[in-house]
C-alpha cells in the first residue's frame, strides 16, 4: 500500500515536471581535453549546449586519454554513468556497447540525416555496431604529418626537404650542425604512431590496410613491410639523441630549431600556433610524409551512456544534435586545430596546414586509423614493441619484424 502511494507520488512529480516549462537539465560530460587550446575548444561546445537551455557540467579529467579512459569506463561499468563522454571513435568503447551500457542514437541520427552530412563516411561506420549508431564524431585528427623546422635546415645549409627520402638524406648535415634530425619523445605511443605513419607513407595505403585491416601476418613478415622497417631504422638512428619524454617537448625542439623535424599528428599544430610561428615561413608541414598524401580518420567522438532519467535522456539527444551543428563544428575545430566532420562548413580562417588537410579530405584520400582497426590490447603490444625498438639500437630489423608479425597474427 505504502509503496504504491509513494510510486504514485513520484509519478505525479515526474508528470508535473514534464508538464511545466522545460527546466534546464544538468548533463555531465567527461573528456580529457585539458591543455590550453583544448580547453578553449571544449568551452565552445559547452557554450553551444548551454544556449539550448540545458547546462553543460564539465568533467575534465587531467592526464591523457590513457589516464582518463579507465576512470570513464569504471564509472560507466560501476553504475555511476555521466551524461556523455569522449572516446576516440573506433574500438575503445566497443565492449561497453556490446554490454548494453551505451545508448543507441540511431533515431537522432536518422532525424539529423547524419549519413548524408558526416564526411568521410568511415567516421560514422566506426560509430556503428550491429547496424546501430552509438556515437557522435566531432573532429578528425590525423597522424600523417611531418613537421619541419625551417630554421634548423637553414642552419645546416640544406634546403627544406619535400618528402621523407630527402629528409633522411639531409640527416647527416643536420647532425653535423649539432641538430637532432628527428625528435621522437620517450612515451610509447609516439614511437608506435611514427611507425604506423611510416607504414602508410613508405609502404602505401594497400600495405597499411593489408597489415592492420586484414591482419595478414604472412604479409607483415614479408618484403613489403621489411622496407618500412628499413625506414623505421633510419628514423631510429635520426632520433637517437632526443632525450625528452612528452610529445609537446619534442615539438618544442622543432619550434626552437634544436631538432629538424617530428612525425606527429595535427594536434602539434596548436603548439606552433601558441609559439607564434607561421606555417610555411617558420615551419613546414608534409602530410603523408610527402610520399603518400592520405589522411587517417582517427579523432574524437562522444558516446552517451544509457540513463534512466528521462530528462537527461532528452538532454543527451539535444547534445548529440548540438555537437554536429555546423556552427559548433566550425567554432570547435578552429580552436582545436582539427578538421570538421562535415563537408558543408566554411573554414576560411584555417591556416595553410589545415587547408592542405582539407584538400586531401575533399579528394577522399582517407584511410581508417589504428584506433578503428585494432583492439586496445593489440595497440598496447605494438606500443611496447616499438618503444623498445626505438630505444634499443642493437635490436635487429629481423627480430623486430618477426615480433611485429606475431602481434599481427594474434591481433583482434
Amino acid at each position, binding site marked *: 500500500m505504502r509503496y504504491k502511494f509513494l510510486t504514485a507520488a513520484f509519478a505525479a512529480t515526474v508528470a508535473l515536471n514534464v508538464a511545466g516549462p522545460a527546466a534546464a537539465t544538468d548533463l555531465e560530460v567527461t573528456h580529457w581535453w585539458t591543455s590550453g587550446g583544448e580547453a578553449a575548444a571544449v568551452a565552445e561546445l559547452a557554450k553551444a549546449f548551454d544556449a539550448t537551455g540545458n547546462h553543460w557540467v564539465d568533467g575534465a579529467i587531467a592526464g591523457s586519454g590513457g589516464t582518463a579512459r579507465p576512470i570513464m569506463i569504471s564509472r560507466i561499468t560501476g553504475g555511476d554513468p555521466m551524461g556523455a563522454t569522449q572516446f576516440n571513435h573506433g574500438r575503445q568503447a566497443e565492449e561497453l556497447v556490446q554490454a548494453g551500457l551505451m545508448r543507441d542514437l540511431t533515431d537522432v541520427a536518422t532525424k539529423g540525416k547524419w549519413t548524408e552530412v558526416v564526411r568521410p563516411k568511415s567516421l560514422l561506420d566506426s560509430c556503428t555496431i550491429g547496424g546501430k549508431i552509438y556515437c557522435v564524431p566531432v573532429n578528425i585528427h590525423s597522424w600523417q604529418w611531418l613537421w619541419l623546422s625551417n630554421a634548423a635546415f637553414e642552419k645546416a645549409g640544406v634546403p627544406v626537404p619535400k618528402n621523407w627520402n630527402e629528409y633522411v638524406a639531409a640527416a647527416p648535415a643536420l647532425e653535423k650542425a649539432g641538430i637532432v634530425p628527428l625528435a621522437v619523445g*620517450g612515451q*610509447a605511443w609516439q614511437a608506435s604512431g611514427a611507425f604506423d605513419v611510416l607504414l602508410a607513407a613508405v609502404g602505401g595505403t594497400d600495405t597499411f590496410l593489408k597489415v592492420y585491416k586484414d591482419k595478414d601476418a604472412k604479409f607483415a613478415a614479408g618484403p613489403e613491410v621489411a622496407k618500412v622497417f628499413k625506414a623505421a631504422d633510419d628514423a631510429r638512428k635520426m632520433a637517437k639523441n632526443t*632525450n625528452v*619524454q612528452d610529445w609537446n617537448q619534442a615539438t618544442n625542439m622543432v619550434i626552437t630549431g634544436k631538432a629538424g623535424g617530428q612525425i606527429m599528428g595535427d594536434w602539434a599544430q596548436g603548439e606552433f600556433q601558441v609559439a607564434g610561428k607561421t606555417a610555411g615561413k617558420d615551419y613546414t608541414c608534409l602530410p603523408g610524409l610527402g610520399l603518400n598524401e592520405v589522411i587517417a580518420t582517427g579523432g574524437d567522438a562522444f558516446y552517451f551512456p544509457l540513463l534512466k532519467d528521462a530528462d537527461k535522456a532528452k538532454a543527451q539527444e539535444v547534445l548529440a544534435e548540438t555537437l554536429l551543428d555546423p556552427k559548433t563544428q566550425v567554432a570547435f575545430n578552429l580552436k582545436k586545430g582539427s578538421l570538421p566532420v562535415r563537408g558543408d562548413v566554411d573554414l576560411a580562417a584555417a591556416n595553410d596546414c589545415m587547408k592542405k588537410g582539407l584538400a586531401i579530405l575533399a579528394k577522399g584520400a582517407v584511410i581508417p586509423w589504428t584506433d578503428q582497426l585494432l583492439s586496445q590490447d593489440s595497440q*598496447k603490444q605494438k606500443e*611496447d614493441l616499438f618503444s*623498445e625498438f626505438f630505444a634499443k639500437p642493437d635490436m635487429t630489423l629481423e627480430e623486430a619484424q618477426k615480433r611485429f608479425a606475431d602481434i599481427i597474427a594474434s591481433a583482434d
Partner: protein
Amino acid sequence: MSNSERPNRLFRNLNAKIASIPMVLTAGVVFVGGTAWTVLYSFTNSKLLPRLNFVGLDQYYRLWATPRWLISIENLLIYGVISLVFSLVIGFLLAALLDQKIRFEDTFRTIFLYPFALSFIVTGLVWQWLLNPDFGVQGVVRSLGWTSFDFNPLYNSSIVIYGISIAALWQGTGLIMCLMLAGLRGIDEDIWKAARVDGIPMWKTYLFIIIPMMRPVFITTLVIIASGIVKVYDLVVAQTSGGPGIASEVPAKYVYDYMFFAQNLGQGFAASTMMLLSVMIVIVPWAYLEFGGRKRV
C-alpha cells in the same frame, strides 16, 4: 574437563571478538575474496569487462612469452636486491654513526629523514630532473669544464634501473635509519659497558652482539622494505614511465597497463597472480620458519 572448557574459549573476550568482526570481514571479503576472484578470472579471456569464458592457461603462456614481462621481472630482481642490501647497510651505518653521541644529532636525523616526507611521485620527478643529461648533474659538471663527464643513467637502457634505485634509496634510507636508531637505543647501556670491560673492539661489538640482539627490528625493517619492492610503480612512472623503450618496466606497471590501458583484464589478472605467487614463495617458507619454529621452543 576439556569438553567443558572448549565453549568457554570461544566466548572468552566476547567484546573484543565482536569488535574485530568488521576487520575480519574486510580481510575475508576484500582481501581473500578479491584475491580468489582475481585468480579465477585470470583463467578467462576477459577483455574490458570480466567474463567467465575459460581459456585455461592461455593468459599465462602469453605472459611468459612477452619480452616486456620478462624485462619487468628482471628489473624487479635487480631493484629488489639493490634496495634491500643498500637500504639496510646504509641505514644501519647512518644509525650507528648517529648513535656516537654526536652534536646536532636532531638536525642530522631530520635531514636524513626528510626525503621520506616526499611521495614517490615527487621523488621521481626531482630525480628525473637531477639525472637529466642536459640540465642535471651531468650538465652542471660539464659546464664546470669536465666536458667528457658522462652520467646519464635514465637514458641508457642497460643501467636505467640503477638510476631508479638511486632515487628509491635516497627516499627510503632515512626511515630505515630511524628504525635502526630506535633499535640501537633499545640496547641496554650495560651491554656496551660489559663489552668495553672485556676489551672487545667496537665493530666486533656491533657485528656479533648488537646486531643479533636487534633481530626484531631487522625483521620489521625487512618486511617494510620487501613490501616496498614488490609494489614499486609510481617511482618508475614519474621518473621514466618505463623507458627508454621498455628498459625500466616493472611488474606492477605491466598489470596496470594491461588491465586498464590495453583493456585486457585477463592478461592483467594473470600478471598480478604471478606477482602474488612470487610473494608467497618468499613469505610462506619464512613465515613457517618464523612462526612454526617458535611453537617448538
